[in-house]
């Protein structure tokens, strides 16, 4: 009855999306090293799709063109709220951390940010909210329109490098690998976002599946989660191999391998955990409401961690909390 196919009528295809990006390291390494394919075995054929931004991935999930994807917290919440909780489920975490406020070297304190221009990836996204909430806590104002004590300028990350270089912005609250790139361009980390969170953990990438696929092929989803856990294991234990795999993979895709040095530089700020850190998502939403960027949204039913916990339990690892 759905285009994902039913178990009985032939082999299932799992269409998995991800971004060729450091924060998607488990996905990239898992695909490059064949971990997912191995775990899925005969139960499903893996078909991978790469995206360079969240909207296309969500549109693909919505329209049934994609079954599962690694994605950031922001699109996850959007997909959940816009489909009234119908379309997607988070089945596992993937990565945490890797976000920082990088500024011009002359700026060493919060006070000095007054009158400065700080870039974020997108109005209302996780980093944008984090910056605004942090500023608010420090007693600085920042309006949606770019006014106030600190001028917050949402722009694409790629553009942030350009504007930081040309001096058009004085800093940026961005994820890796842009943190490292800005640092290499002469920037200085003023705030490491990990320091603002309990246990220094907050979600940067998680794995979602479409509800339809989950219902039709729970077994395949379980295998997928197994793959995710295995990929995280690989990434966490064999760092050097992972760096090379990410570099090669991006090279295949873009025509130019990513500099391994850059990956190495960014690596320590990231934590690859299977825990989707649901609490950080919830807190992030509260912050967004606090800075008046969104209306309260219910996250009920977004998480379905039974598969993850099943896998973890089977491997004798600590389970994660289902919110």
């Amino acid at each position, binding site marked *: 009855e759905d285009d994902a196919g039913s178990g009985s009528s032939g082999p299932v295809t799992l269409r998995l999306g991800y971004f060729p990006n450091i924060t998607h390291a488990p996905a990239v390494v898992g695909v490059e090293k064949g971990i997912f394919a191995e775990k899925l075995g005969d139960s499903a054929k893996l078909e991978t799709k790469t995206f360079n931004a969240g909207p296309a991935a969500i549109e693909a999930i919505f*329209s049934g063109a994609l079954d599962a994807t690694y994605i950031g917290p922001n*699109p996850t919440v959007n997909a959940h709220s816009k489909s009234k909780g119908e379309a997607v489920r988070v089945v596992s975490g993937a990565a945490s951390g890797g976000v920082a406020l990088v500024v011009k070297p002359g700026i060493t304190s919060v006070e000095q940010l007054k009158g400065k221009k700080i870039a974020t990836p997108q109005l209302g996204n996780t980093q944008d909210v984090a910056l605004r909430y942090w500023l608010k806590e420090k007693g600085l104002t920042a309006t949606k329109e770019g006014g106030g004590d600190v001028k917050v*300028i949402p722009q694409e990350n790629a553009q942030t490098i350009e504007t930081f270089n040309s001096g058009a912005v004085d800093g940026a609250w961005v994820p890796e690998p842009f943190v490292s790139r800005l640092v290499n361009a002469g920037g200085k980390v003023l705030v490491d976002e990990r320091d603002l969170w309990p246990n220094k953990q907050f979600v940067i990438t998680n794995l979602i599946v479409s509800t339809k696929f989950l219902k039709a092929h729970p077994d395949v989803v379980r295998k997928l989660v197994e793959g995710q856990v295995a990929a995280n294991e690989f990434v966490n234990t064999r760092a050097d191999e992972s760096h090379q795999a990410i570099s090669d993979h991006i090279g295949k895709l873009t025509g130019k391998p990513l500099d391994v040095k850059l990956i190495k530089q960014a690596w320590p700020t990231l934590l690859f955990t299977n825990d989707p850190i649901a609490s950080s998502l919830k807190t992030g939403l509260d912050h967004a409401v606090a800075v008046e960027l969104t209306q309260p949204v219910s996250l009920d039913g977004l998480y379905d961690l039974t598969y993850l916990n099943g896998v973890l339990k089977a491997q004798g690892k600590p389970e994660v909390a289902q919110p």
Partner: protein
Amino acid sequence: MASDTLAGRADAEISGLDALEIAGQQKTTSRAATIWAATWPKLAALAIAVAAWQAVVWAEVWPPYSLPGPGTVGRELLRQAGAPQLWDGLATTLRRAALGYVFSVGVGLLLGLAVARFRVLRAAIGSMITALQTMPSIAWFPLAILLFELSEKAIFFVVVLGAAPSIANGVISGVDYVPPLLQRAGRNLGARGMNLYRYVIAPAALPAIVAGLKQGWAFSWRSLMAGELIVVGISQTSLGAQLTYARELADAPWLLATMIVVLIVGLGVDTAFGAADKAIRRRWGVLDQAGQ
């Protein structure tokens, strides 16, 4: 013989008056008819499009959050129309579009005339114009930011680089096809150099130039939609930003509502171009006779 058939038509006076009357009648009938003839097909097309859309939605091929129905989108559009953001964004974008386009027209016309006129220039950069036209807007962003930082000028830069080559190409193709006989006539009447352009080549190339201007508008508008992401929300919202946000937020009704706004603007602009084109065709006598 002639007077047999139309009795009472012997007098030229009467037939003159008669002719006026016939003409007058034609006009009155045609005025109402013209409006109706221009309107009903649009309404029909709209009705068909909306009905097809609704049918697909009812068929539930895709979930409603993926493809909302006309009702949902219509309500969203009304909601938007009631709030100031849409109008502010539209105003900002239209202002930028107008400014950028006017500037592009200036640059494009000058460039086109220069290339069409000077052989050396044509050999040197003629092909470059099309090549520039094919460069996607985002490729210019770094340069725009380098040159103009995060100002509106950076947006204009991208818009002009998008639209001017298209307009220039229109001018060049127009000038290239000016009938040699008219050029010779102009030269013989004493029009040389700039005067030849002013009195002969420019008016003769006008139809192609208008076609180029129309294409240029499309380029400038699309470049603007992309370029508006260079400076988002610095102080104002814009249609380009709204389009992107709607997508980022996976908000299908908002996206479709914004697309409808873009289409309406496009329709308005096309109507303006259509009127200009019709005026030219009437003057040239292409309309009268083709319209039979």
